[in-house]
């Protein structure tokens, strides 16, 4: 049974046009998903709808039989769904520890938050080393680790990452995906939106192609990587023949 059932979602920003136009997707527990698609397909919007940052105009998001539509982000966080946004949404002038503490903001028990921060430090020792440094002094990769660590303080059931490798050097991106593999091994359901579609699909069990606000295709990542149509349309095919025509 799906842990998260997304059906017929129509959503957009403010009074603007619909970005998602009837998107449906079933997320199975402990599976990792990579959402790919062209710019403007609605990938980030999908994640924002799930975590309550953007309200759905139509359709339903159901988490373990519990409807999430209309709930505030903090209420959705309480259910164990965390979102790591794209724009390095840290608190730049707070220390690393304070950033992690903000990750546990919805938990009232401060000692429990401190315990969980220690767990995060276990996973990202570099964060512990820089504990009292301001977040803005970290490198791009370390900031991404801090963002993931901040979400982990809540011990989420589902973690959603929006372009975690954006702007990172390939070797650093690989480190980030390595740490995501650790999350996967820990049984956390992962939904990642990734511009670097190949890397994302190699990481995830399952792929989903979004275009024009709908899920056009979904299936095991390996089959998507091998599908020539999808390769041509969304993966930027290495044009052996077509290259000569261009």
């Amino acid at each position, binding site marked *: 049974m799906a842990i998260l059932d997304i059906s017929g979602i129509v959503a957009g920003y403010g009074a603007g046009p619909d970005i998602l136009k009837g998107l449906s997707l079933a997320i199975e527990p402990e599976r990792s998903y990579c959402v790919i698609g062209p710019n403007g397909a609605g990938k980030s919007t999908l994640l924002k709808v799930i975590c309550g940052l953007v309200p759905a105009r139509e359709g339903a998001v159901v988490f373990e039989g519990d409807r999430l539509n209309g709930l505030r982000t903090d209420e959705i966080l*309480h259910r164990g769904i965390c979102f790591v946004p794209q724009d390095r949404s840290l608190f*730049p002038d707070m220390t690393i520890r*304070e950033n992690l503490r*903000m990750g546990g903001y919805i938990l009232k028990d401060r000692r429990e938050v401190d315990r969980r921060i220690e767990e995060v430090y276990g996973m990202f020792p570099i964060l512990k080393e820089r504990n009292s440094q301001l977040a803005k002094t970290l490198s791009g990769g370390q900031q991404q680790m801090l963002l993931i660590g901040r979400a982990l303080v809540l011990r989420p059931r589902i973690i959603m990452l929006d372009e975690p490798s954006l702007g990172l050097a390939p070797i650093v991106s690989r480190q980030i995906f390595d740490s995501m593999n650790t999350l996967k091994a820990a049984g956390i359901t992962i939904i990642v939106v990734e511009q670097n579609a190949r890397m994302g699909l190699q990481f995830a069990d399952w792929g989903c192609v979004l275009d024009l606000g709908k899920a056009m295709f979904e299936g095991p990542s390996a089959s998507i990587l091998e599908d020539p149509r999808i390769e041509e349309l969304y993966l930027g095919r290495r044009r052996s023949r077509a290259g000569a025509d261009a």
Partner: protein
Amino acid sequence: MTQTVQIIILGLSLGGVFALMASGLTLIFGVMGIINLAHAAFIILASFITFGLFKYFALDPILSIVIVMPVMFIVGVAVYRIFFARSIADPNKRGVTVLLTFAIALVIEGTLGFLFSNIYRSTSPSYASSAILFGPYYLPEAQFYATILSAVILIGLWAFLQYTRTGYAIRATMHNRTAAEVVGVNVDRISMLVFGIGMALAGASGAMVSFLFSVYPSKHWEFVAILLSLVVLGGMGSLLGALVGALVLSVAAAFVSSYYGPVWSPVTFYLALFTILLFRPQGLMGKKAEF
């Protein structure tokens, strides 16, 4: 030398009160991005409330702070709910909030002018006319109390922001609104709370303004220009910046007033405003850009 030290003492003591006046303005800007042109009008409103309590109930203006602050907090929450809650949620409408604050300032001024006419008023507690002497120096007693009280309130505010869970949430919202939302901060509630706190701070400073200056309904234009200049100098949204800006500019204005006459004292603030906007628009402690 004695004169120089005396000017610094007077400048710093007034600077403390200006810092308190500006703290609410900078806090509201930091959290909501609203440049509240009505801030000084609310300070004047609080002065009038203090004046009323003094005149009809013989309540000491300093003591009246315990009434004025909560009243202004409630006023702030109501103003936020009625006028700002919807407009700041929509980024496209955020730009017009400055016009809204301008309108609120006019309404407060007009209402006060209608009810109390535009004559000068001030409360006159016993300490308003005496001075504290130490060696060759003096400090008006009223200014002394106002400075101490401003410092206490500002330290309290700082500790609240630094150490409480709500304080963390306020700072987080100031740093990055989206990030705050993502970790579960109810930014709408925080904004409402901060508007209330900002108005409560305006209330406390208004109570002190009532015996430090003569007030009349349109006095707020003079104040808001000064407050904006020192907030811009310190860096919009920075509390420490507002304090530094207030102290630096008040001392500078005291020097200008002493050497060139009081008429030139307000010019100090405007000159500083122009200079800072030309050479360091983010202010002394403001953030340059988000990352």
